[in-house]
């Protein structure tokens, strides 16, 4: 009986690929993107039924729109920087295999804290430039503090009570949205949903504008990116994060205090979220609503993951996604589609293509010669070839 039992071998196995040169991987990525882009544009063409190249032109125009009197497409650059910032904020926890899905919420509470300071300190800030600088610094500190608290709560529960951080951080997002809605309502004295732009006339607590409104925020985000890159790559903390990420038991075995490392990393993540929140309130929106961050916190998860946590690739993918988001939204408005569904389909397609592309760059399929189906297919093909030769 035992001899009769057949050993089942799968048709193929997935094997890690380590022989692919870097330049080839880059070419594959670019080729995949271009092919998917033109395929996506074909879908646009079938939906819109207008000139194919005109649609592509509209998309490019929409993405790179330059405001009156400006020479750079600041909006594209700012959107790219924001997505990059969100992704950078979650890189450290993700490297540690701590799935922080709460970047949106952490940024929101930070932005909210900054707005509250800005709202109540207007009278103090308008007295002098020095006072205004103090208010801006207080806004930054309040934002960082709020974001750190929001990031650390799930981490504490994770390390001391073994709760699931994915669910916890997700739930914290909803709490943050509700809190923003409520505080807005209170600030507007229950007369409307929000006070709108805070300090619109006095501009108290507003970040200074140099070159362009978005210039300084972009520089700050680039600086954060460089700092985090060095933090992860070159410091002892960064090394500890990767050890915890590879194996928490190994980390414990070599005497690392994993609880401390997890909480410390989330403090770092919270600080970055706090700075993003501050940028939203002080430099960009000067107001807050529950949708301030859109879904950047979630898109950033995909971006960070697909980029294998490399800041340069994160920046590249952020640029591509922001470009497409702005461009497809322009296509939707120019051709009056009445919604952003087509835009979402295209972004989804691109993500899907990047996902598949990254998979095949990192892994390859290895067919098992012993598998029966493999043998059957091989036999079929060899027979056909044989037949063909005979016919000739």
């Amino acid at each position, binding site marked *: 009986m035992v001899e009769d039992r057949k050993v089942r071998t799968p048709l193929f196995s997935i094997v890690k690929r380590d022989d692919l040169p870097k330049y080839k991987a880059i070419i594959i990525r670019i080729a995949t993107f271009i092919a998917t882009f033109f395929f996506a544009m074909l879908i646009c063409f079938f939906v819109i039924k207008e000139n194919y190249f005109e649609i592509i032109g509209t998309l490019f*125009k929409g993405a790179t729109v330059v405001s*009156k009197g400006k020479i750079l*497409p600041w*909006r594209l650059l700012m959107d790219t920087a924001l997505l990059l910032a969100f992704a950078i904020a979650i890189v450290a926890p993700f490297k540690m295999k701590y799935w922080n899905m709460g970047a949106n919420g952490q940024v929101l509470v930070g932005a909210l804290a900054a707005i509250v300071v800005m709202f109540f300190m207007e009278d103090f800030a308008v007295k002098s430039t020095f006072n205004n600088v103090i208010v801006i610094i207080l806004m930054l500190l309040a934002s960082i503090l709020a974001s750190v608290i929001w990031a650390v709560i799930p981490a504490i529960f994770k390390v001391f009570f073994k709760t699931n951080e994915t669910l916890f951080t997700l739930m914290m997002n909803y709490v943050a949205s509700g809190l923003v809605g409520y505080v807005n309502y209170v600030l507007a004295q*229950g007369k409307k949903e929000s*006070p709108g732009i805070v300090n619109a006339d006095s501009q108290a607590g507003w970040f200074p504008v140099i070159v362009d409104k978005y210039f300084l925020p972009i520089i700050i985000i680039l600086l954060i990116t460089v700092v985090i890159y060095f933090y992860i790559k070159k410091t002892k903390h960064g090394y500890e994060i990767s050890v915890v990420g590879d194996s928490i038991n190994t980390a414990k075995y070599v005497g690392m205090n994993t609880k401390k490392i997890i909480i410390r990393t989330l403090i770092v993540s919270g600080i970055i979220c706090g700075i993003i929140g501050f940028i939203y309130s002080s430099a*960009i929106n000067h107001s807050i609503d529950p949708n301030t961050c859109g879904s950047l916190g979630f898109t950033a998860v995909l971006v960070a993951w697909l980029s294998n946590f490399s800041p340069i690739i994160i920046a590249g993918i952020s640029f591509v996604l922001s470009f497409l988001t702005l461009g497809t939204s322009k296509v939707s408005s120019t051709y009056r589609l*009445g919604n*952003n569904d087509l835009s979402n389909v295209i972004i989804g397609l691109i993500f899907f293509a990047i996902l598949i592309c990254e998979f095949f760059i990192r892994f390859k399929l290895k067919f098992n010669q012993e598998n029966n189906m493999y043998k059957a297919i091989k036999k079929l093909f060899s027979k056909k070839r044989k037949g063909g030769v005979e016919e000739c």
Partner: protein
Amino acid sequence: MKKLFNVLVLVLVAVFAVNLTACGGGKDKESFKIGLICLHDESSTYDKNFIDSMYRALEELRLEESQLELVTGIGENEQCYQKASELAQTCDIVFADSFGHEDYMIQAAMENEDVWFCHSTGTKAHTKNLNNYFNAFASIYQGRYLAGIVAGMKLQEMIDNEEITAEEAIMGYVGAFPYAEVVSGYTSFYLGAKSVCPSVTMKVRYTTSWYDYDKEKAAAEALVQTDNCVLISQHADSYGAPEACETLGVPNVAYNGSTASKCPNTYLVASKIDWTPYYVEMIKAKMDGKTVSSKDYTGTLTTGSVKLDALGQNVAAGTQEALDAAIEGLKNGTIHVFDTNNFTVGGQKLSSYLADVDDFGDFEKETEVISGGYFHESEYRSAPYFDIRIDGITEINE
């Protein structure tokens, strides 16, 4: 690698060059461009009403659909400013449809003086006093008053048929937020009903959301089952309340569109704002190079901005005649919805009231709005400012 970089730089420069050359635009009819910024997309009944009105305006003005740039899903934040500024580069006039867009529209208006920015439901145009920024609303309280007459006629019929007693003529109202817009709406609805059914009273429950099917449904159910209401109306955007009424068999007065097909047995009537006359007037003025003196546009029954949908199958006999008389009265000024003879506050008739007409963000009530025996709603600015809680209406805060 260097070559690749050079090519990339060249492509980017070329793209920006295309953009720069694409800026600007003429004022003749063919090259006239219109932008419309919507909070959600056409799946929301609120935004669909604006979009449909815009298409009707284009048709009326014999403009091509391609002259419209329709932007949907724009939040009430910096996104709105960015979109409005972007549209200002190609469009001659830009409209936005949501209250929270206002500050961002003003910001864009200040930076683009040659483009008109028209914001529906906003409050700040008359205080900002910019040459290119305007507010608009409609005297929808007139429509609510008329819808109230339909409801009152139904209640009176139920009393006459001894289905309910006069004391049991309690209406329920599902409101979104306790803001002036909602208070003005439910009060005019109540006064319309009271004008034909004197014993009517009303209870109001809030959902604290403009669109929440479950909350609106639950509020309608609570009004019927807990608060003993026998007729429901609402100021919220989902089908929650009308569908709850259809299930419970309670008459319903809808808003922003007829629910006759979904709720055939309980639908009575619906009032709504038609933005077409406003769009036509503003686009035409801008196209003809005219100036608009008033910063606020208030559409009325006379301008065709306030409309009632067709009556449902179960309205009381004589409703159409009562409506016709009221419409006539409202148009010729013999009827004022907020006539101070028709309501009391704390048992007293009102002879004076200060309202927060000038929106400086301070919520200070500074403008006398009662004169000549009635509250002058939507006359000193287009957006509603009637926020008085009158006798006969109870707000339930649980």
